[in-house]
């Protein structure tokens, strides 16, 4: 099933309520007729409990530490209780919007940044304006991340965790085969050849779910055109059927035809692709920084590099996951603000790094944390370019609409299965409506 990277959800059903309400005469405000049933406390109007809805995390075992953190928060803020609920991605896609609109939904919830997610909700009036809160609490969110949750000049949420996309590679295997870390596209190709001759799959590309196509394109394209080039494309200043885009797509087609990828990569799903790398059957794995969590279990040294450019080492691409938003219909705005304040505190940031193994969208002091060296390196790289030094590319799917993403994902799958040429895929992307 399509579970897009960067923790995405589908676009909102937003103002369905208005229209449905018009038809059925149902009031769409929080003071609706429904009342919470007996049993476990629901709604929490009377008791002051905040409902915090998150998407089911990568590792379900992270839910317990999360609950512990919440308990810490409750301890520091007597009078506020928080109920946590974790719901899988696709189900959230269909259930969140009507619940928010009806007033029965969560008070605080994690949702994606960017126009297709936060933007859609903002347009539908489902979000609580946080512009004042940012000023009042002085939340130290990175600039580019803050931009992704700013709509119509108003800051409507907190960005999600930062994620980068790049190429993992088996350091031990490379040493064995006498390959150096690739710093140009040519070197990558040569490395892949060497690996292939050794009877190992060079690059474990997995594209069964489809959303990986966005990452494959993002990493190849970002390195090729640089950060500014990506911004131009995303802003509509450059067109998607330009030669650079086609070349980036072509790279993957070439790799596929050269046999660097597993047979029928569109039949290889996310977990299987990863397992190829972990078991040593593949030498490289295009994936994201979130995978760092799984690496320590592996018995060889792992490196993480940006996808190379034709003429140099390339740049990492950056995207954002899901961050907390406050519902416009919440009955406890003050408590919700306090809670969100906690979620961007350095204390919680360290928790994010250590337990959730994600990169917070704000600077965090990580010197005395127990994390793997690879993770520390990823953190360092990310915070330096997020803080303004160095260039970074863009995970396209976080910055664009679902219709565009569909064209992109279909395009890459089409290329890998021979149903489309890179030109056709690029054209489809250019033709996709931007709203």
């Amino acid at each position: 099933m399509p579970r897009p990277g960067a923790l995405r959800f589908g676009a909102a059903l937003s103002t369905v309520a208005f229209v449905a309400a018009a038809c059925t005469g149902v009031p769409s405000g929080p003071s609706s007729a429904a009342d919470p049933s007996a049993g476990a406390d629901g709604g929490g109007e009377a008791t002051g409990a905040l409902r915090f809805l998150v998407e089911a995390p990568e590792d379900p075992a992270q839910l317990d530490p999360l609950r512990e953190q919440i308990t810490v928060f409750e301890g520091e803020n007597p009078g506020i209780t928080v109920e946590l609920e974790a719901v899988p991605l696709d189900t959230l896609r269909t259930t969140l919007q009507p619940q928010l609109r009806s007033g029965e939904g969560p008070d605080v919830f994690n949702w994606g940044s960017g126009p297709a997610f936060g933007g859609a909700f903002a347009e539908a009036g489902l979000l609580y304006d946080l512009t004042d809160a940012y000023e009042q609490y002085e939340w130290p969110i990175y600039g580019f991340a803050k931009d992704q949750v700013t709509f119509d000049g108003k800051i409507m949420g907190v960005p999600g965790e930062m994620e980068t996309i790049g190429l993992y590679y088996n350091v031990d295997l490379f040493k064995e085969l006498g390959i150096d870390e690739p710093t140009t596209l040519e070197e990558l190709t040569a490395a892949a050849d060497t690996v292939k001759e050794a009877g190992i799959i060079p690059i474990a590309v997995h594209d069964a779910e489809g959303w990986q196509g966005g990452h494959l394109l993002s990493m190849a394209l970002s390195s090729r055109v640089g950060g500014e080039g990506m911004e131009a494309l995303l802003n509509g200043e450059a067109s998607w059927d330009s030669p650079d885009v086609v070349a980036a797509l072509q790279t993957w087609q070439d790799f596929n035809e050269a046999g660097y990828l597993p047979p029928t990569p569109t039949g290889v799903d996310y977990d299987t692709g990863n397992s190829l790398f972990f078991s040593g059957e593949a030498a490289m794995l295009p994936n994201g920084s979130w995978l760092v969590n799984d690496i320590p279990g592996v018995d060889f040294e792992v490196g993480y590099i940006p996808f190379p450019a034709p003429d140099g080492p390339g740049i990492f691409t950056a995207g954002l996951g899901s961050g907390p938003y406050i519902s416009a219909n919440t009955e406890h705005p003050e408590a919700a603000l306090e809670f969100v304040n906690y979620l961007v505190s350095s204390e919680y940031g360290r928790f994010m790094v250590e337990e959730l193994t994600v990169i917070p969208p704000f600077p965090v002091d990580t010197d005395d944390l127990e994390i793997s060296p690879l993770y520390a390196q990823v953190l360092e790289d990310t915070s330096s370019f997020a803080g303004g030094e160095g260039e970074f590319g863009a995970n396209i799917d976080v910055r664009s609409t679902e219709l565009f993403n569909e064209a992109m994902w279909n395009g890459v799958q089409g290329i890998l299965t021979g149903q489309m040429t890179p030109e056709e895929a690029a054209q489809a992307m250019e033709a996709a409506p931007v709203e």
Partner: protein
Amino acid sequence: MASTDSGPAVTRRAQARLGIALVAPAAILVLLFFILPLANAMYFAVIRFDGVNPNPPFVGLANFTQMLGDPVVWRALGNNAIWIAIGTAAPLLMGLVIALLLWNVGRGSLWYRVAFFIPFILPGVAIGVVWGWIYDPIRGWLNEVLRMVGLGEATTGWLGNPDTALYAVIATAVWASVGFAIVVFLAALQSVDADLIDAATIDGAGAVQRTRHVVLPQIMPIFLMVATVTLIGGFSVFDIIFVMTGGGPAGATEVLGTYAYSNAFQFNRISYGTALALLITILAVPFTIGLNRLQRRMSLYRTGA
């Protein structure tokens, strides 16, 4: 319509009274919790709703004409047709054959029945994951078995290969639903008059003939009911495809159901999505009516609605 209607008007009135009383709960529930919201939903199909504008314009049938020009819709329809053809015939026939085989096994058949029914019980997620492994291009069981028996050239990407993906999903769906047919047919076979079968055997009829002329007519309403439900299911099929391929690769397994869902819940095109869902219904109606009439005509006793 019912040719075995009882004579006296008193009986007919009594029947009508009881009939209405018995149907009332179902009718009321369906009206309240299905027809009503459905009518509301249909409103979306005749407007152009972009998800934001609280006063969306009425566009009549524009959503439907848009469908005619949408190449994805035509491809999806083709996939639906394939699905309906194979996905109806296969479980029906296989279900019947296996049910007949099990019919004589008597008490011991319970464990067989459990074995055949378990695929139907498994949650869709589990089916998707496990069959994903079976179909995996590199180490999956299917390709391994093919290699072992020397059919190595037949190995392919299955779910990742646009030419085979739809059939692979259909195969999984058939695997998952044969158990349903078996259980239903076994229940139906309970009422079959065994005397007639014995008589036919004595008369020298072969197994196939006995099935066609003795057994099948007696279970015809149920057989056609299973056919109807399965066939209609082929129009609105969505869950298993969504879990296994998401409609991919690049739309190779897209059907009306997945396309409607994507439009409504992913692309924010609620009007178009609803219109597509309604298309599913519209297409299925003639088949439903046709099969229902057939069931009425072919059932032995002709008593149905």
